[in-house]
């Protein structure tokens, strides 16, 4: 958590490998890898996933086709055979149902004409499909209605286990009502100024960030 412009989105984008950022020094260790030496897609296949704050709209590309290509890439790098169309569709449909996306919507091009909330749900749907080891959620809760917020919370809780981590960027308490964080960090001017547990969120809600700077 942190005030606007504090570096939260920068942090997750640097972790995911966005090419517009240059790292002058340091390393990012993730499992046995130094992420800095890996391309965006290599990081993704190593288990890093980013739920975008503003997901791209991709004309002409169907969500099914897109996710099949993504899943195939992941399986290939794990030395596994590609899913058959039938097996993939089964997993796809079941996850779609669980996150509560209308299958009619997914007949459109990816994110094309999706509402803000639909795009966010679609991000979480992709997370459910790809089952990352480290999920970066960049303000996924903004613009979501109560039901969507609950669905996102449920999806995170379902995937949550001792082999997976989530880094959730948020401004609000409300997602954290559904997902109880193990740690809360406050990022101001690119630095973690305070760390704690979920009780820290209450403090921010009542007195803002000024007391930390």
């Amino acid at each position, binding site marked *: 958590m942190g005030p606007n412009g504090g570096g939260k989105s920068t942090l997750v984008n640097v972790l995911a490998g966005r090419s517009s950022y240059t790292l002058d020094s340091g390393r990012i260790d993730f499992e046995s890898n130094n992420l800095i030496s890996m391309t965006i897609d290599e990081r993704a296949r190593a288990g890093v996933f980013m739920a975008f704050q503003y997901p791209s709209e991709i004309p002409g590309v169907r969500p099914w086709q897109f996710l099949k290509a*993504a899943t195939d890439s992941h399986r290939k790098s794990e030395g596994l055979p590609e899913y058959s169309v039938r097996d993939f569709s089964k997993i796809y449909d079941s996850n779609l149902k669980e996150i509560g996306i209308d299958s009619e919507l997914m007949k459109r091009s990816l994110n094309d004409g999706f509402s803000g909330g639909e795009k966010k749900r679609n991000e979480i749907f992709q997370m459910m499909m790809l089952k990352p080891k480290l999920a970066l959620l960049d303000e996924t809760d903004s613009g979501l209605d109560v039901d969507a917020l609950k669905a996102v919370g449920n999806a995170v809780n379902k995937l949550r286990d001792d082999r997976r981590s989530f880094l959730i960027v948020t401004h609000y308490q409300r997602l954290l009502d559904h997902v109880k964080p193990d740690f809360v960090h406050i990022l101001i001017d690119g630095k973690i100024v305070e760390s704690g547990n979920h009780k820290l969120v209450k403090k921010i809600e009542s007195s803002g960030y000024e007391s930390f700077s």
Partner: protein
Amino acid sequence: MKVFPNIENLQHYQDLKDQTVKSSDKFGEFKRQSFKTFLEKGLPVSGKGNERWKYLDLRSLVKTKYKLLEDLNKTDNKFSPDVIFLQNAISIVNGQVDSKILSSMKGIKVLEVDEIDIGGVADNNEDGMIALNSSFFIEPLCFRITEDFNYANLNIVFSGDSEGQRLDCPRLFIEIDSGVEVTINELHVSPSADVLKVSVLEIILQEGSKVLHNIVVNGSKYSKDFLFTRISQNKNSYFKSVSYSDAPSLGANDIKVCMNGEYSECDLRGLYFTTGSSQFNTHVVVDHNVPYTKSNQFYKGILTDNSRAVFSGKILVKRDAQKTYATQKDLNLLMSKGAEIDTKPSLEIYADDVECFHGATAGHVDENTLYYMMSRGIDKDRATQILVRGFADEIINDISDKSFRKIAVEQIDKILPSLSFQ
């Protein structure tokens, strides 16, 4: 204005004409008149005063003395197009029509010379290329489609053997009877040789008729494919054209629709995919001559390597054509630093109660979109291919005939993996 570059070539075509236009030729007079026009107009090699072709380098057209089929050894048996799976197919090999199938098809009436107004829709004065075709076509294919036509589609396959330096001038004239609905698929399989093909297709849509016209051009890096489609629409008729053209060394998809009947509508879409050093011209004109007509032009380009494409689209609304609704859009994806697009959408409006829209874009693959796709584990090359394919699909999916669409899809899928995107 004469733009013929050298007298040597002029003499060459004069000789060619003397050989081919025999006194017994049913179209002899038309050809002789057309040749006069051709001599006045010449081939469009000069950039100056030549709006349609000025962005392309057509000088190679006059470097070669193209010959007609009679000059070459007939090599019909050597060539067997691998497209014979298309049913109801008229085969045009080396510009020569095999019309045998026509007489066996119900609902097709072959027209005699006195039953048609050849050149009535495709005006020789419009472009030297059309006049060239009108001067040198061998046996035009002229027929009417009547209400008895009951086939899913009519396929026209243009192909040729690889004997080079040949001029092919296929010519077709089709009249669609009132109320008749037909799908016409036009497939051009270019030979791997320096063949200059200038094809002219004239279609007249009578009242209430509907034509879905799909075009696929599989170019070769040697071929020069210039396609002219000229359409005349009568009242309440509907014409839809969807074209896919990939990379002849030099080529054009040139369409003109004259909306001559009220409540007629046309929808023109196309994708040009240029690779290597190919040059391709898309020229689309819709003339709204009467009130209450509607048109749409939607074209896309994918340009790679050092290829070059030109789009010039025009909506002309005549003074009486009130309540016209016309749109025009051209979107281009530049995949390399060496590729170039010149796009020029234009409106010419003389009526005061119309709605017309136009627009054009040219850009590279969006970095944010690539980042998004790669963040899902898809490598850059594959992500780019998926994006390009998605861009193409918006046009390709509009090819109404499923089996014909497959030809375009297979062609794109064959080209995409071999490309390197800088």
